[in-house]
Each structure stands twice: as C-alpha cells, then as structure tokens.
C-alpha cells in the first residue's frame, strides 16, 4: 500500500457491472514523507467516505478489486483507508 491525497472526484456515466455505486476519486500518490510523487491516478473508494483533501492509503493490483463487493470487478487501484495520523521517524533517507 502507498500513501495518497484525494485531489478530486471522477464521475463516470457508464461503468462495468458491479462498479455502479463505487465512488471514483482522483488521488495524488505521495512519498513516505507526504510529498507528491508521480502522476495522479483514479482510485475506487472502498471506504466510500474519503473526500477531497484527505490523506488516504491505497492498494494497487489484484488486491484493489478485492476491497470491493463484488470482488470480480475491473479495478487496479482502490482506497483502503483514511489516515488519521502518521508517526514518522526522523531518520532514514529520502524516498
């Protein structure tokens, strides 16, 4: 899983069956210190509670679809949870 920040919402008009009620959110991937890293992606929101500005963590790949019900849906990134707080060690290198 990786950290991300919700920066917007995507509203599809036609979706694959099983994805009808799933919110799709724009997510900016972050590095381990919370700085933006790479291009924004669209994530299915399995919590159904994330909103713009929130710090979240998301899963990629096969496991992303497994956060949803039904699980056999074409999804490659999904928000798994909303971060309340992070305790970060000061040491270590940049990532």
């Amino acid at each position, binding site marked *: *899983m*990786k*950290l991300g920040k919700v920066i917007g919402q995507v509203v599809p008009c036609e979706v694959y069956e099983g994805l009808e009620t799933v919110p799709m959110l724009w997510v900016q991937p972050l*590095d*381990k210190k919370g700085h933006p890293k790479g291009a924004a992606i669209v994530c299915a929101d*399995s*919590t159904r*509670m*994330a909103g713009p500005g929130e710090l979240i*963590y998301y*899963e990629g*790949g*096969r*496991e*992303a679809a*497994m*956060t949803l019900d039904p*699980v056999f849906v074409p999804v490659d990134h*999904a928000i*798994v*949870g*909303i*971060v*309340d*707080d*992070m*305790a*970060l*060690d000061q*040491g*270590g*290198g*940049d*990532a």
Partner: protein
Amino acid sequence: MIAGRVTGHIFSTINHPFYDGKRMLVVEKIDENGKALNDYVIAVDTVDAGPGDKVLIVDEGNGARQILQSSDGPVRSVIVGIIDQITVD
C-alpha cells in the same frame, strides 16, 4: 521478499474491515548495504516491529493472505520478520 527499514506508523479508524485492529507501518525499502532506496511500502505488521528496525516483507497477495489467515483479504504487503544482520559476500 524485500528488505526494508521501518520509518513510521499509520493510524486509521475508517478503513476496510479487514484492516481493523491491524498494525500498519511505513517501511522504506533498503538495498543489501542497508542504504535507503527511493521507494517505500505500507505493510501490515505481524512481528511487533518498531521504528528503525530492519524488516523482511512479503509483497505478494496469496502469501500475505495465508499469513493473515484470510481467503479474501485485500492485502499484499506483510512484515514477516525482523532482520538482525545482512551479509554480502
């Protein structure tokens, strides 16, 4: 499996039910010399690792689910060991 160093802890109340009660740590990936690589992963802790510990991570879904005894958990990265020493010939 990959090696990493624990750099932080994540707290979350709103999450997928599978993650209820699970400890999640931020782990930066390291190379064989212990140097930080430009990447990290958030992994479920099963060995009570803490900040600064070098750890071993399984980054594969089926193995992760097997460790956490779940058939349908949306999990891929699990900390499965604490590294005492890395030797490079």
